[in-house]
């Protein structure tokens, strides 16, 4: 297990203050007929996902300036019921949940495994690699729709204060009134031309939950749990990979995501731009 405890210096690229501006001022997005958006390189700020501590006390994950050196190809909309059903009909994807009957709305009630299975199937089908985004890629694509909910500093000696602060933040968060999946575009288009980010669907990412301790700029990952993945939407959440319906009866103190769905990153053969992006971002991430 000690082998997992690689000590890594967290690399900070770019200033922490400006990157959101750079993102907003990026050139207008391009969308091809297949519904794939090409996102031009830009820098952005990213709050690391996971549980972080400093001197044994819980703290927010570090805020990092990241940069994408190349284009990122990402679906403009979430995968729809009609698209997912084709995979079901071919026997590759499991049939999930009870859908509303509409085929033009995003598929929901999918686990990380279902989403990954679909990505593998569509990759085989098209000969083009499709995959779930990393949390960093999702944050880059979501741009102003990605929310950083860092909490105010509280007395580290009192675990209840952070707990109550988080509870109040979650309780005060506004939620979309409509819980059923809506046709693409219902929740608006962001500055990168992508639809429905942070609407009533939370999207699976490929990023695993980590626990890490911070010491100055040094980050030590003490545990990586890929049975729990980061899901992104109106707020960030951590979800066990086989969960399809995130609702909870309220026993755990917190507000769960409304629906689980996904959109994919596309890696064009030959272009390899997305791959380069992923590698670049990986360089900047903890391993």
């Amino acid at each position: 297990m000690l082998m997992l405890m690689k000590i890594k210096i967290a690399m900070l690229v770019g200033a922490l203050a400006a990157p959101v501006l750079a993102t907003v001022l990026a050139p207008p997005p391009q969308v091809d007929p297949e519904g794939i958006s090409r996102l031009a390189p830009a820098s952005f700020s990213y709050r690391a996902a996971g549980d972080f501590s400093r001197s044994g006390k819980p703290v927010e994950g570090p805020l990092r300036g990241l940069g994408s050196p190349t284009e990122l190809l990402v679906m403009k909309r979430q995968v729809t019921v009609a698209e997912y059903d084709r995979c079901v009909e071919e026997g590759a994807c499991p049939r999930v949940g009870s859908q509303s009957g509409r085929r033009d709305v995003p598929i929901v009630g999918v686990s990380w495994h279902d989403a990954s299975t679909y990505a593998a199937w569509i990759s085989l089908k098209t000969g083009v690699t499709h995959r779930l985004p990393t949390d960093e890629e999702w944050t880059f694509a979501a741009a102003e729709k990605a929310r950083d909910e860092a909490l105010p500093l509280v007395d580290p000696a009192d675990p209840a204060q952070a707990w109550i602060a988080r509870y109040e933040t979650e309780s005060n968060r506004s939620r979309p009134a409509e819980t059923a999946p809506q046709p693409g575009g219902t929740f608006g288009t962001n500055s990168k031309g992508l639809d429905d980010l942070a609407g009533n669907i939370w999207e699976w990412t490929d990023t695993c939950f980590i626990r890490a301790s911070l010491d100055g700029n040094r980050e030590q990952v003490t545990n990586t749990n890929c049975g729990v993945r980061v899901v992104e939407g109106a707020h960030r959440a951590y979800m066990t990979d086989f969960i399809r319906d995130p609702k909870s009866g309220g026993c755990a103190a917190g507000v769960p995501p409304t629906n689980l769905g996904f959109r994919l990153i596309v890696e064009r053969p030959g272009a390899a731009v997305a791959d380069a992006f992923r590698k670049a971002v990986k360089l900047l991430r903890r391993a």
Partner: protein
Amino acid sequence: MLTRRTALMGAAIAALMMTAPVVAETADELKLPREKVTLVAPPAVHPHEQATKSGPKIIEFKLTIREKEVVIDSAGTKFWAMTYDGSMPGPMMVLHEGDYMELTLVNPETNSMPHNIDLHSATGGLGGGALTKVNPGEQVKLRWKATRPGVFVYHCAPEGMIPWHVVSGMHGTVMVLPRDGLKDGAGKSLHYDKIYYIGENDLYVPKDENGKYKTYETVGESYADTTEVMRKLIPTHVVFNGSVGSLTGKNAMTAKVGETVLIVHSQANRDTRPHLIGGHGDYVWETGKFNNPPEKDLETWFVRGGSAGAALYTFREPGIYAYVNHNLIEAVELGAAAHFKVEGKWNDDLMKQVTPPSPVPPDKVGTADPVAVTR
């Protein structure tokens, strides 16, 4: 409509016959001071004295019956509720032992069914049920004497449809306090800084052939399907105060470290087992009747269907507490969960995370098992 009219006529005749003696006897002969109470919706309870030095009174309450469609979960499931004063459960009514309750029960013309009230705290007349049947457009006044202290359920009890009215929300709680207040088993006075009132409700919502919850134009139209679900005894929802999550988030109950809270929990139909996660019941009247000494230091208490229980607890540690029906399937999957947000200073003596989560140390070959050594 034919069925409804027939039901109304039958009820009207019964009501005429039964209410006659009460109309003849007025409360004036009692010559007691009167007090009028304005009721508030749960989980709040109207202001009241815990112990009183004054003599018995006639306390006037008014409950208005409201049939209305409500939303019972975050998915927007609609449900035809029948309520006292518009809330599930109906408001708590507090008086002291020896007081008289004079209750006006109003059934507005906008309702579709006859209703009544059976108060478990009252003696005779089917708990008042026999004397309070009112058709839409009628009201009735009932007086009863509080002869024994405790928390008691009240509910609607119309002939032939009792369970349907009860599981549709027509239930509430009466609290009869001893005149000298609550006591522990040794005669020491107990008091509370705050009171919260939780009414648990098992709901039976019909589904269509696709598994979607059905909606109905009127409460009457939901009767046949709902009864069918009820007869299987498996609720689709088990909720506190009318809907899943009604006492969480912005509506979470609050307290401060050092504050003593009386939590009254009523369930008019089905057994439940309240539990405060991270806390206890310092003094618990599990059966809800204050002439019995309270049990101490409980982890979970059993509230029988058709009764109310009361638990007194002084919060000792800040944070978020979940208050649940500790059939955890009912709490987490069906909705029977509430939260307390407790402010104050953390006490490391009661709890401390000695070592935060960290990797399990590697096994060292040849190291003696520490347990084996100490033995």
